[in-house]
């Protein structure tokens, strides 16, 4: 497997040197994941592994029509079944309006849609919750669901974007319109002129297919209300324990200190578990009514049809180029399908519009974006929520290249932002790019794939054998580690025990990001201890407040807090050690938990265990007046977003007989700043790439014309397996960011870059026959249809 690794200049030479007084040993190394021994042997502890004494089980009655009026809802036959404890409907919930709305969204104007935790008098998508049964077992609960006497009079649903826009039928009658979240940045006369009078003006419409997060672990919750303490204990599969605590407290109208959220392992989320969903809110509310620990585990069918969907977007984009084929203006009209009950915000169109220029020196852009409600599953964040900007732009770049007759790599090279252009202010003056390397990643990817040789082979294979080979690129930048509101802050507590072992407490909600490993690397590095001596405790609300694990924020923001706390503790370690060694603290260094005087290899030493023993057990030995213990809590505030960037390139072949697409190579040249753990970086890239490949070639959540979901099992909703995805080759360029560690967030990039890359490769192959495609998905059926249009 090809590997390339290019360090870029550090633009921040005034940065404090990394790891002062410690030997750099763990950061930047492929440290094996601490999580793996339990996870890969099947011994992770997930929410369904939680069994509490007296626990009872919930199951939801869900609508099987997309839109309709409830004319009868009689739960008494269900209640009569042996083992059923209670049946609840909307009327039984003591819901305080606004309490389910994500805390972050409350500051931004509240909920996008009505807050019907259970259906009121109508249902709005297939999967909409109508009632909940609580029973001694899940089996009994599901038996009881069948006994509920429900009559729904079906009404005409709104199933797709186009229908929603007409407002002929309305999803939420309270709102009177299906259109939500409209943002209109109009074209000024200058842009208008460029878009009409430039040497080349090209317009195209692209559609992205509906995809869902599909975590390996579905959602789930165990809520246990202690009525004597007035406290709620929540075990919950989530990404964001502090947000869950806040929402649960508000839902129950208790103090936040009366709620404890804890989880062990979380089997993925990709955005699905960042905020409080409707079902979990119902379980929280009912936990106090039921008085026994209450468990709800989402099953796979529920997860596929009713958890959250994403990616169903449409855009019409226009690019204007001058005679030199420099892109001078861009305009995009974005429509997003928000479904019926989106959560965590209706959509990401604004970010997609503002990032239209991506890594190119495109000076003039404008956009219009709106989301529409439909009678389908609600939208929520999915890894790279606004990745549509890269889909639109990168597919458009290659479309334009074909239309005006220029090589797509050459077109990118003429337009890409160069090192000397940085810092670079975006056309709308709201973002400043810095510390990125799009031109360098493009060059690296071109070199790794052997572009010229591939083009020659593509030509030969087509002319001599009629084979359809294709190559596609995508070049993008990734604003990661947001610097606003709760997302700008993280805290960490570092404590050293009396035996010299290190406990770290962080507010993160790891759901596969290797946080227990990477954050231990950071702390180990700063403290001068072995990484095995550091234990990261997280996934618990009894930690310093944090904004949750999502938005690619851990590497730079959480590490900033961990690093700062570790430095404070190290300073105290040196003060105590200096006292014990009768040396000057400034002369000390620590390596492998042994503190010595710099430059005196045979001199006196003291171990970290001796120092911590002194701090906690032999406190008389501390310097006069010094506070006991070795612990510190520090917070990090993110001043600016970090800009990761990458170039993806892949080569494919289309089977003309079956429409199947097979990969030859897939390369990612990534710049996420300094890497804490290159193996974890590559794992994150690969996971995202697979999801991106899936969005174009495999996953496609489909509804029929009546709003019935057609892909509600993994037999029809196709996740690619190891057999379907290529080996991913990695190139690395490291441009340090202006954060304490020089890191950048990168967790979402694979899923951002892959869809347009894969699409472009297929489109390139089809172009050999003069066939153009514009929409995802590109399964065999769509490809055979496209091939049938070839002359």
């Amino acid at each position, binding site marked *: 497997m090809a590997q390339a690794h290019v360090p870029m200049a550090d633009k921040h030479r005034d940065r404090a040197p990394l790891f002062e007084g410690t030997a750099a040993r763990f950061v930047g190394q492929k440290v094996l994941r601490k999580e793996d021994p339990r996870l890969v042997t099947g011994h992770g502890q997930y929410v369904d592994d939680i069994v509490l004494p007296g626990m009872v089980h919930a199951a939801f009655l869900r609508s099987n029509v997309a839109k309709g009026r409830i004319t009868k809802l009689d739960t008494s036959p269900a209640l009569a079944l042996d083992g059923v404890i209670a049946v609840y409907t909307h009327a039984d919930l003591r819901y305080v309006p606004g309490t389910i709305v994500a805390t972050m969204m409350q500051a931004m104007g509240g909920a996008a849609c009505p807050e019907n935790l259970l259906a009121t008098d109508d249902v709005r998508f297939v999967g909409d919750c109508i009632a909940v049964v609580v029973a001694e077992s*899940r*089996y009994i609960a*599901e*038996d009881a669901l*069948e006994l509920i006497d429900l009559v729904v009079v079906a009404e005409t649903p709104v199933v797709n974007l186009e229908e929603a826009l007409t407002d002929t039928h309305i999803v939420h009658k309270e709102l009177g319109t299906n259109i939500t979240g409209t943002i209109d940045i109009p074209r000024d006369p200058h842009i208008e002129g460029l878009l009409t009078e430039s040497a080349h003006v090209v317009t195209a419409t692209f559609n992205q297919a509906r995809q869902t997060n599909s975590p390996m672990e579905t959602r789930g919750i165990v809520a246990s209300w202690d009525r004597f303490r007035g406290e709620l204990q929540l075990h919950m599969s989530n990404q964001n324990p502090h947000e869950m605590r806040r929402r649960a407290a508000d839902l129950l109208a208790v103090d936040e200190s009366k709620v404890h959220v804890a989880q062990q392992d979380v089997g993925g989320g990709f955005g699905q578990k960042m905020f409080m969903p409707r079902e979990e809110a119902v379980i929280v509310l009912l936990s106090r009514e039921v008085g026994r620990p209450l468990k709800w585990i989402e*099953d*796979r*069918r529920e997860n596929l049809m009713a958890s959250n969907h994403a990616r169903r977007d449409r855009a019409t984009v226009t690019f204007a180029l001058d005679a030199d084929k420099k892109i001078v203006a861009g305009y995009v009209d974005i429509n997003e399908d928000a479904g019926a009950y989106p959560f965590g915000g209706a959509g990401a169109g604004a970010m997609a519009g503002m990032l239209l220029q991506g890594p190119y020196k495109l000076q003039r852009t404008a956009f219009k974006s709106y989301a529409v409600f439909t009678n389908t599953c609600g939208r929520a964040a999915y890894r790279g929520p606004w990745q549509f900007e890269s889909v639109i732009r990168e597919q458009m770049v290659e479309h334009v290249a074909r239309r005006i007759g220029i090589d797509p790599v050459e077109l990118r090279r003429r337009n890409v932002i160069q090192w000397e252009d940085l810092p670079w202010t975006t056309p709308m003056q709201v973002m400043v790019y810095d510390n990125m390397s799009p031109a360098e990643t493009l060059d690296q990817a071109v070199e790794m794939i052997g572009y010229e040789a591939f083009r020659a082979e593509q030509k030969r294979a087509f002319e001599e054998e009629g084979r359809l080979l294709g190559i596609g690129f995508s070049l993008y930048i990734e604003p990661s580690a947001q610097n606003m509101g709760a997302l700008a802050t993280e805290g960490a507590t570092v404590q050293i025990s009396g035996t010299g072992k290190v406990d770290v407490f962080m507010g993160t909600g790891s759901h596969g990001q290797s946080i227990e490993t990477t954050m231990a690397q950071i702390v180990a590095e700063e403290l001068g201890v072995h990484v095995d001596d550091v234990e990261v405790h997280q996934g618990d609300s009894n930690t310093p407040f944090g904004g949750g694990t999502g938005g690619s924020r851990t590497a730079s923001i959480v590490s900033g807090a961990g690093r700062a706390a570790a430095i404070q503790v190290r300073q105290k370690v040196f003060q105590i050690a200096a006292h014990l060694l009768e040396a000057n603290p400034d002369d000390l260094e620590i390596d492998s938990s042994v503190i010595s005087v710099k430059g005196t290899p045979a001199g006196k030493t003291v171990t970290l265990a001796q120092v911590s023993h002194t701090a906690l057990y032999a406190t008389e030995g501390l310097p006069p007046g010094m506070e006991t213990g070795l612990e510190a809590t520090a917070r990090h505030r993110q001043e600016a977003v970090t800009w990761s960037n990458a170039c993806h390139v892949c080569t494919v072949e289309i089977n003309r*007989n*079956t*429409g*199947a697409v097979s990969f030859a190579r897939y390369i990612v040249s990534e710049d996420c700043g300094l890497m804490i753990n290159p193996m974890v970086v590559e794992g994150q890239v690969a996971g995202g790439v697979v999801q991106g490949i899936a969005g174009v070639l*495999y996953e*496609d959540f*489909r509804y029929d014309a009546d709003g019935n979901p*057609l*892909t509600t*099992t993994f*037999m*029809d909703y*196709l996740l*690619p*397996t190891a*057999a*379907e995805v290529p080996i991913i080759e990695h190139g690395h360029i490291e441009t340090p960011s202006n954060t304490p560690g020089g890191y950048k967030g990168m967790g979402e990039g694979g899923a951002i870059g892959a869809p347009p890359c894969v699409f472009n490769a297929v489109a390139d192959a089809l172009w050999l026959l003069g066939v153009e495609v514009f929409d995802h998905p590109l*399964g*065999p*059926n769509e490809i*055979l*249809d496209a091939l049938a249009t070839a002359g």
Partner: protein
Amino acid sequence: MKPAPFEYHAPETIADAVGLLAQHGDDAKPLAGGQSLVPLLSLRLTRFDHLVDLNKIGALSGISRDNGHVVIGAMTRHRAVELDPSIATSVPMLAAAMPWIGHFQIRNRGTIGGSIAHADPAAELPAVAAALDAELEITSKSGVRRVAAADFFQGTFMTAIDTGELLTAARFPVWGKGSGFAFTEFARRSGDFAIAGVGVGLEATGGKITRAAIAFMGMGPVPVRATDAEKALLGVSIASLDAAAVARVAVGATDPTGDVHASAANRTKIATHLAEQALTRAASNAAANA
């Protein structure tokens, strides 16, 4: 996703099993490897008051020879057939089809009889049984009867098995010298139910085709035999077989429907290509076996 309540029975003899099936009639369902039935029960797409688990009936497992047939007990696991070296020479089409059935974990548990009795139109074994004119052995309290594959598959998930009856074995005929076989299919992912698939058997004497069998899967409610194409092949020189032309005729026998994965027209396109591939390979295998 939990099944509706059922009563579980685990008989140890065929007689006890058919006794239970007779006693409970349409309220009872035999449970073989459970690879299809259990998900259907869990999704509550189907329900039975009584499940008759066949896994303790040793007499239902095994591979034997009888009068020009290979007889496979209904509870024989796919994997056992796949790994049995004698199947590759006695019923080569069956051997060729086995690796296409699900994933190996599914084949470890799934059974020959379970798959045939389930009669999924996109499954491999019904197509192989149809192609080879297998006989299906059905047992009830009143005895044993044999049904030709052509009469066994009656519709999607529908077979000739009546209330109180149990599929106990499948009998695959052994073809002679000069025969060659192929089986292939196209699925979106490795191990998925196929969009389309085809099994082909050819037998030639003195270079002329004397016997031909072509059966499609996923191309209609039951496995589809391409009888017109088979007839047209008789007497044709195996060395100069026009596989593409025969494939076009063969696919004419099918009447596929579309679903989320492929339209009817694209299924036909894919099946034609698969048939051409399979005919070419079967002809080459037959020539090698002359």
